[in-house]
């Protein structure tokens, strides 16, 4: 095979011998970020820049009857206005939920829904003008919760979705559930609630749109997904994609909150085209809470059968998501509240029912852990209760029933490596769990929980067979390397990871690599910085491109040095013969040699994830090349007289596969602990309804950074992190994700620790002091020592799809589904998946597919 040589040469350098990979190197954008040199979207300025502000709905639900700009136009500096009819085309992140308008056409669906836009020569003038736009509405009844959505099918917030105000319902049964419960020695049933919360990225969303020559526009934005924004702009503006250039600026934090195409991005582009002037908008903090797309509030019911030794015989999970006013990623979020239950412990039979409802509140979407922290919270607290009932140590219960590496789960996910055992052992040892748990003084306790997350979603958001990530390298006689990739730096360090991977293959310095990222005109498509996909997918693409460049150079240099290409070492900006190190060239001369031999040098690499064995409807959510695992122990101090508590120490171990840069991994772990504690302790995207007889209002309770409570560093406990390395063949150098996974065990570990400290169960987050106090008072009265939801909403989840498990000899399909899932042989614009896979294999089987 032609590529065997490629693989061999590549393999020699796919090792730990690089200068950067595996070592704590300084991130490529670090110095610029700490010295204020980095230009975020709001830092951009252009001649004749004008400022945009959106006028947002002041009522939660209703019809627009009139919009009057008369007073606004009188503001000095006023330049122009837009209303919904200027952009009638819908958009939305998912093809199945194209339910947003850049500006509301005639309906408004929540307080904060954008209805009009004004532009002016200064930010002051735009702000003043926006306040003076008069909008009249005809109000409609409002829906504030899942329960209200279920009991009020009319008026519908949207005229699509499952029915009434149910956006999506799903019911999937994997295997003989009843048989599983029959086998159980103990059946445990619990109700949980996880409140919604916002990403609270420090950088508010900002966009600058710059019109260029005829019918071309460049849109700079703080977005995690420039490619999807590009598609939405194309659709709504009615311009060819080639006329629109999207550049994602470095994000000052994203966490999923900048993964949707947003109204303000599209309106800024439209306004810029209308006025022929660069147009900027930077949202204020309140508007960020209205864009939202944060964690869904989820009610949960979990029923699990256990055998005496703690093995799970069956589980039935039901979730109800409060989706807010638009679809966003909600269909995926709904599936995600069920999809990853199966990947941590052996779970042979499983049913998942989920429902997402529309409500008159800002839309929920993906936030770090997308849809999985809620059921993970329920599951891990549920397991803590089961262990107690069964008389088992919660750590032992988990250790005894871990999922198996490489297995296909009951819901047809293929697992990769699993280092969860080592993770649990690390935090158990580190925290002194065995010696200290249950033996600490009253008011102090230890809690343990685990979690798992995907390393990139197996499928893109819209149906296609194209690479999900790609890298181009350009080398020339300067000796420098230009790296082009559509990936977006959102603070996670993706630029640094790509540069390091390439630098190590070619034996050069990070400074020799010029990065050009997230620019739809210049860089090959990467789907975006979401689903923890960049290190794995763009990383594999980068390795492929770099290996190909290395091979070209090696071929040319070997000829010149009269040695074999596989004898060449690329290190220290030199290319030399390993058996005769004196025989070599500088990297610059090596590139010149290759350019002379082959002409202009450029290589590409791309990545498509392996196919998932699941074929049932809904099987597209959950598959990933591999999964990361985490375990946490939290020590907490609780004052029983007030319910005030304080996490004292967090031990968190993460199965990273292989750390490309351990410092970045530590940062992600500590950041996840911080964010997880915020959600567990205080963060709430909460709403207020005024007395119904006096007012129709339904407003965000506290859309400000002061009153939306998120921990400061004073609340942050000591964190001990463990990087557990067990390289996974699917990842670049064996690396897995770390951006999201470590958040998952934190909320349940806290709840479990509080139980250990004072003996009360708090089955919802955030855990507020009054909840603990109330549960303690109930306990004193001999009542149930618990605070949490009493039940689960009455939901009809619709027809249950029956999917036999791999153990039952299933083929990955539902046995009772009349609707055909899209076949892998179906021909789309980009060919069939099989054709695409074959094509990639022909070119280079080394790094793209199995």
């Amino acid at each position, binding site marked *: 095979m032609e590529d065997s040589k490629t693989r061999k040469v590549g393999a020699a350098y796919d090792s730990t011998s690089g200068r950067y990979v595996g070592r704590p190197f300084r991130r490529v954008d670090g110095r610029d970020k700490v010295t204020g040199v980095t230009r975020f979207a709001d830092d951009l300025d252009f001649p004749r820049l004008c400022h945009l502000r959106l006028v*947002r709905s*002041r*009522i939660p639900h209703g019809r627009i009857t009139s919009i009057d700009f008369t007073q606004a136009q009188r503001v000095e500096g006023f330049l122009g206005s837009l209303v919904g009819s200027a952009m009638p085309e819908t958009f939305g992140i998912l093809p199945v939920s194209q339910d947003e308008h850049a500006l509301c056409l005639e309906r408004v669906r929540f*307080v904060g829904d954008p209805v009009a836009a004004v532009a002016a020569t200064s*930010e*002051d003038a735009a*702000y*003043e003008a926006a*306040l003076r736009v008069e909008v009249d509405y005809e109000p409609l009844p409002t829906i504030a919760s899942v329960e209200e959505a279920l009991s009020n099918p009319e008026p519908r917030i949207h005229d699509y979705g499952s029915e009434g105000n149910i956006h999506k319902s799903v019911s999937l049964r994997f295997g003989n559930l009843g048989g599983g419960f029959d086998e159980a020695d103990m059946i445990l049933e619990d109700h949980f609630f996880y409140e919604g919360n916002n990403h609270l990225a420090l950088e*508010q969303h900002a966009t600058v749109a710059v019109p260029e020559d005829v019918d071309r526009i460049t849109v700079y934005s703080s977005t995690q997904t420039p490619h999807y924004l590009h598609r939405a702009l194309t659709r709504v503006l009615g311009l060819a994609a080639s006329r629109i250039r999207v550049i994602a600026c470095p994000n000052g934090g994203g966490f999923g909150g900048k993964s949707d195409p947003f109204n303000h991005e599209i309106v800024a582009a439209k306004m810029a085209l209308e006025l022929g002037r660069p147009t900027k908008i*930077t949202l*204020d903090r*309140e508007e960020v809470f209205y864009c939202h797309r944060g964690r869904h509030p989820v009610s949960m019911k979990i029923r699990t059968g256990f055998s005496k030794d703690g093995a799970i015989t069956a589980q039935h999970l039901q979730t109800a998501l409060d989706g807010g006013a638009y679809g966003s990623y909600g269909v995926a979020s709904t599936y995600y509240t069920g999809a990853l239950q199966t990947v941590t412990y052996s779970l042979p039979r499983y049913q998942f029912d989920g429902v997402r409802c529309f409500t008159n509140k800002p839309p929920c979407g993906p936030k770090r852990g997308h849809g999985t922290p809620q059921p993970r919270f329920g599951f891990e607290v549920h397991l803590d209760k089961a262990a107690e009932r069964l008389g088992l140590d919660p750590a032992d219960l988990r250790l005894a029933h871990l999922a198996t590496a490489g297995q296909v789960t009951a819901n047809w996910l293929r697992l990769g490596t699993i280092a969860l055992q080592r993770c649990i052992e690390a935090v158990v040892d580190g925290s002194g769990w065995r010696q200290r748990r249950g033996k600490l003084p009253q008011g102090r306790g230890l809690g343990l929980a685990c979690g798992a997350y995907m390393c990139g979603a197996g499928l893109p958001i819209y149906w296609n067979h194209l690479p999900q990530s790609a890298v181009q390298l350009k080398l020339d006689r300067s000796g420098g390397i230009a790296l082009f990739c559509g990936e977006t730096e959102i603070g996670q360090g993706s630029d640094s990871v790509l540069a390091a991977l390439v630098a190590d293959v070619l034996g050069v310095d990070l400074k020799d690599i010029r990065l050009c990222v997230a620019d739809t005109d210049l860089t090959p498509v990467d789907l975006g910085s979401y689903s923890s996909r960049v290190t794995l997918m763009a990383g594999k693409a980068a390795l492929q491109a770099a290996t190909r460049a290395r091979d070209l150079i090696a071929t040319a240099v070997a000829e010149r040095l009269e040695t074999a290409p596989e004898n060449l070492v690329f290190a220290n900006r030199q290319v030399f013969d390993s058996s005769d190190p004196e025989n070599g060239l500088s990297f610059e001369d090596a590139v010149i040699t290759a350019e002379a031999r082959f002409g202009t040098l450029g290589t590409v690499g791309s990545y498509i994830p392996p196919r998932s064995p699941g074929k049932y409807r809904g099987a597209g959510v959950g598959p990933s090349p591999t999964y990361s695992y985490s375990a946490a122990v939290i020590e907490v*101090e609780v*004052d029983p*007289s*007030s*319910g*005030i508590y*304080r996490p004292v120490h967090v031990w968190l171990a993460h199965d990273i596969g292989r750390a490309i840069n351990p410092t970045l991994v530590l940062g992600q772990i500590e950041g996840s602990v911080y964010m997880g504690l915020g959600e567990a302790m*205080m963060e709430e995207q909460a709403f207020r309804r*005024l*007395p119904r007889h*006096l*007012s129709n*209002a339904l*407003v*965000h*309770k*506290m*859309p*400000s950074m*002061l*009153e939306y*409570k998120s*921990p*400061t560093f*004073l*609340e942050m406990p000591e964190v001990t992190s463990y990087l557990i390395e067990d390289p996974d063949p699917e990842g670049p150098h064996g690396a897995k994700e770390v951006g999201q996974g470590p958040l998952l065990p934190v909320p349940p570990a806290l709840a479990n620790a509080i139980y250990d400290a004072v003996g009360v169960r708090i089955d919802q987050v955030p855990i*507020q*002091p*009054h909840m603990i*106090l109330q549960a303690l008072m109930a306990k004193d009265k001999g009542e149930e020592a618990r605070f949490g939801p009493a039940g689960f909403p009455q939901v009809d989840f619709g027809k249950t799809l029956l999917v036999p498990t791999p153990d039952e000899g299933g083929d990955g399909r539902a046995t009772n589904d009349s609707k055909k899932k899209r076949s892998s042989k179906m021909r789309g614009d980009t060919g069939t998946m099989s054709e695409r896979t074959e094509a990639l294999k022909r070119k280079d089987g080394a790094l793209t597919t199995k």
Partner: protein
Amino acid sequence: MLRLPRFHFHIPDSTREAASILAAEGPDARLVAGGTDLWPNMKRRHQKPATVVSLMSIRDLQGIDLAEPSAEARIGATTLLGDLVRSSALRERFPALARAISSISSPPLRQMGTLGGNICLDTRCTYYNQTEDWRRAIDYCMKEDGSVCWVAPSSSRCWAHAASDSAPILAALGARVRLQSAEGERVLALTELYRDDGIDYLAKRPDEIVTDVLLPGASDSQTCQSSFWKLRRRGSIDFAVLSVAAAVWTDGKGIVSDARIFLGAVGSRPVPVAGATEILRGRSLTEDGIAEVAGLARQLATPMDNTDFKAQWRGLMTARYAEAALREIAGLETQIPPPHHSLQP
């Protein structure tokens, strides 16, 4: 971002000049010192003054005079909170006041905010401290442009709460304030500066300038011990959802001669725990007396659902914190962990 409306800005360099501008402009003029309260409020269009008069260039309004323990202490109204936090004399002479001030907001804001600004702080409410757009969405409230108090819709008054951290402890310590206007000056007990109303919360006329805060000198026969406990969500930044300020005077034998306790954030003014003196006076500070005063404090507090945390729980915590503050003064162990503000400056 939120933008300020347009206004005329004056920077006088004497109190007399400032007073004459106020007298000339009438109620359309506002004073500003550090601006940490006024500017955000103006950005949200709570106040739309045509004229703003800065006090920050008036030298006479700055300064701390605490040197002589037996003499009346004076703190200039525009003294930075940060300077007070750093004053070792303040920490020694009025430790509870130093603790209260060190709990105000965050270090950068204390470097802008002033003591005078803090005692004149606008009352707060989650239905009020919102942007113009948000308030339009609830059709405003009684405190501004509306007719209903959404915290208590059947109420005829506004229930916005007093949020100053310095006011309750200054009140407990018996502070007075000097006010100056074009017509002259007057000195008020700090407690007289406040009204029990969320809207009209200051007894000061709009043309009057708070120039100094005066604190009584130490007496030979009486020892004053004080304490300040502040409840809030986080260890910094947050306003109080409850504070308890207590000052207890005892003679050489430890017999209480006077006790003054004020509650913050559970009423529209610093709420005096009236009757505490009667309970505690004439005997030493014991657990029984403390528990009785704590019960009284809870009765007098009116925590409303207009800030962070459940109102009911804040009521419960009023008793616990009052107890803790007094136990700290009595040298007894406090049963609940000290709040975050115990992080010393």
